[in-house]
């Protein structure tokens, strides 16, 4: 079966037909069975099949854009929950790609990555809500929604700065020691967010900040012109999805360009052998700080978006488990591999949001139905058995199994091979 799929995907024409057909069928399926998780997952799987199919680059790009940019939003209007999942997947893809630079390329194990996400989220949350009035006094805040776009870049700058601040003291450390310090840093940021409500109220402590401003619907007049009355409840998910897609696109682009340049090569050299890299002329301090700053800045941008999407944030969203979750994504997908990070983020998020929740739902239905099997009434099943409660255990199990059977990840980083040009005769 797998061999058959492989041969089909290896030739451009059959590959295109197969992929387009699969996308069409599964999309049709999602449209007609909007509540079926399995059908939606098949749809996602066919998007990934697109990545493996061999076809001209322009065709692949336009199919990807068409699927993610048109098909997905259409399905999202049929079942709004799918839009929510797509947005969350996008957020985690951007986070995974950011962490991929630090851990996957530069080999600096960062267990506190979510701290940067928090810094980005809080930077917009404070100024995009009345919270900032408590700090500066007056009645100037919240800033107008237009500032959201400015803050996307402010978030990038602030978190890049935070990345450098974290990087400076830990540059001498590597391996386990670095991991421990970054873990501590992650906790420090969370504890700060929890406690910076006194004496000056910066973060409003565990109660969190709300309401956080959302980006302006600047295209509303255009929509009215074509006769659509913009309903915020419908528009915002689509709008945020589009923004997430843009951010993910930008992160993929930045990731790819850095990876395939002297900077990415220097990072990989540091990962392979730090001493040799330094002896070959790679300035360790500068390149490591750059890795921390670049990785952190992605988290900053999605952090800003996250706070605007949630309207409400509190320190609960930025726990250690989130850092581990993002790390699990890139381990699952394959360290240092961009498609791997994307796949890992998608699989983990869908597993969390859909598979385990779906199983729990099914489990509860089973209980409620109260069917008797072998003289045991299913209604007596203890609620502790609910699959959603085992989220972390399932995670752990997956990672352990991955480490045993496929330590390089699902889509390990492939070395680029390139034809060398003939050396010109002197």
């Amino acid at each position: 079966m797998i061999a058959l799929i492989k041969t089909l995907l290896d030739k451009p024409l059959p590959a295109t037909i197969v992929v387009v057909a699969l996308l069409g069928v599964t999309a049709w399926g999602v449209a007609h069975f909007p509540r079926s998780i399995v059908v939606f997952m098949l749809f996602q799987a066919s998007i990934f099949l697109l990545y493996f199919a061999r076809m001209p680059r322009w065709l692949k790009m336009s199919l990807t854009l068409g699927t993610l940019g048109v098909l997905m939003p259409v399905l999202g209007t049929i079942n709004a929950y799918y839009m929510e999942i797509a947005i969350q997947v996008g957020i985690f893809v951007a986070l995974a790609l950011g962490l991929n630079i630090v851990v996957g390329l530069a080999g600096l194990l960062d267990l506190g990555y979510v701290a940067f996400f928090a810094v980005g989220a809080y930077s917009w949350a404070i100024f995009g809500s009345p919270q900032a009035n408590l700090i500066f006094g007056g009645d100037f805040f919240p800033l107008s929604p237009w500032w959201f776009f400015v803050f996307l870049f402010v978030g990038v700058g602030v978190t890049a700065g935070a990345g450098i601040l974290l990087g400076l003291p830990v540059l001498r450390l590597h391996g386990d020691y670095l991991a421990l310090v970054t873990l501590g840093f992650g906790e420090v940021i969370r504890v700060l967010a929890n406690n910076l409500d006194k004496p000056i109220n910066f973060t409003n402590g565990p109660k969190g900040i709300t309401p956080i401003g959302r980006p302006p619907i600047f295209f509303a007049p255009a929509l009215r012109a074509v006769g659509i009355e913009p309903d915020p409840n419908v528009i915002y998910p689509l709008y945020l999805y589009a923004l997430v897609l843009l951010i993910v696109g930008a992160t993929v682009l930045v990731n790819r360009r850095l990876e395939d340049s002297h900077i990415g090569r220097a990072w990989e050299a540091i990962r392979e052998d730090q001493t040799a890299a330094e002896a070959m002329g790679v300035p360790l301090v500068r390149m490591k700080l750059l890795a921390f700053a670049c990785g952190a800045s992605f988290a900053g941008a999605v952090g800003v978006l996250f706070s605007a999407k949630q309207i409400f944030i509190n320190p609960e969203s930025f726990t250690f488990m989130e850092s581990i979750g993002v790390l699990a994504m890139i381990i699952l997908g394959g360290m240092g591999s961009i498609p791997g990070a994307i796949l890992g983020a998608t699989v983990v998020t869908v597993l969390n949001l859909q598979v385990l929740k779906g199983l729990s739902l099914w489990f509860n239905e089973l209980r409620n139905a109260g069917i008797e099997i072998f003289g045991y009434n299913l209604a007596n099943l203890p609620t502790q058995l609910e699959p959603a409660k085992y989220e972390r255990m399932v995670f752990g199990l997956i990672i352990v199994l991955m480490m045993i059977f496929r330590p390089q990840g699902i889509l390990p980083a492939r070395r680029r091979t390139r034809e060398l040009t003939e050396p010109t005769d002197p």
Partner: protein
Amino acid sequence: MATLLEARGVTKKFGGLTALNNVDFELEEGRIASIIGPNGAGKTTFFNVFTGLYVPEEGVVRFRGSTLTGLRPDQITALGVCRTFQNIRLFKNMTAVENVLVGMHARVGSSLWGALSRNQHWTREEAALWARAAELLDIVGLRGRANELARNLPYGDQRRLEIGRALASKPALLLLDEPTAGMTQGEARSLMALLRRLVGDLGLTILLIEHNMRVVMEVSDHVTVLDYGEKIAEGRATEVQKDPRVIEAYLGRRKWTPRAEAGDA
């Protein structure tokens, strides 16, 4: 000829062990010189002092008149001193050509912005880097294995790739730590031919640490002998070979005599 590398009174200690004791050293431009000595004599430590991996407690190292002591390894590489390692330290999970490209890092002019925007300057420089990497792989005879992972290369090729990677930083002085270790006599011979070519064609100066005496005698203009962190002899290969202190360091003493007397004999 001008002095390229100069060490004055270099002392390096590890706890109670004095790895280098007040060593003076000079290397003239355009030569192939060797440092020999028994195991643990401080040869590699000396290299690490030259390349900035160790900072000596006392003494100073100068390269073309400017002081190297206290500079970071990457700064020293940028000045034109590059090295290979005794126990091969390639970037194992990168391809051969990528290893060479990393070696060029000190000579890359593009910035972060160049890499992100892929402007004309970056594109042109990147193309030039790849072309030069191809040339360097040609020089060390690894052209056909450019896209192979470094860890999959045979041992001798790994040694030569390390030399190629070191050459990528356009050094004026190349430090090679036991380049023929583990090579067959034939491989060692072709490597020596390569080194002579480098000195002739590229105007390099080469300093070797070597155990293979045949190689040392054949290729080097000048030999320095270290033993227990001290310089015990130096001069032309044929002279050093006859020095009783050198023979003693390698083979042990015939009978117990005070060191000073042995030196005078």
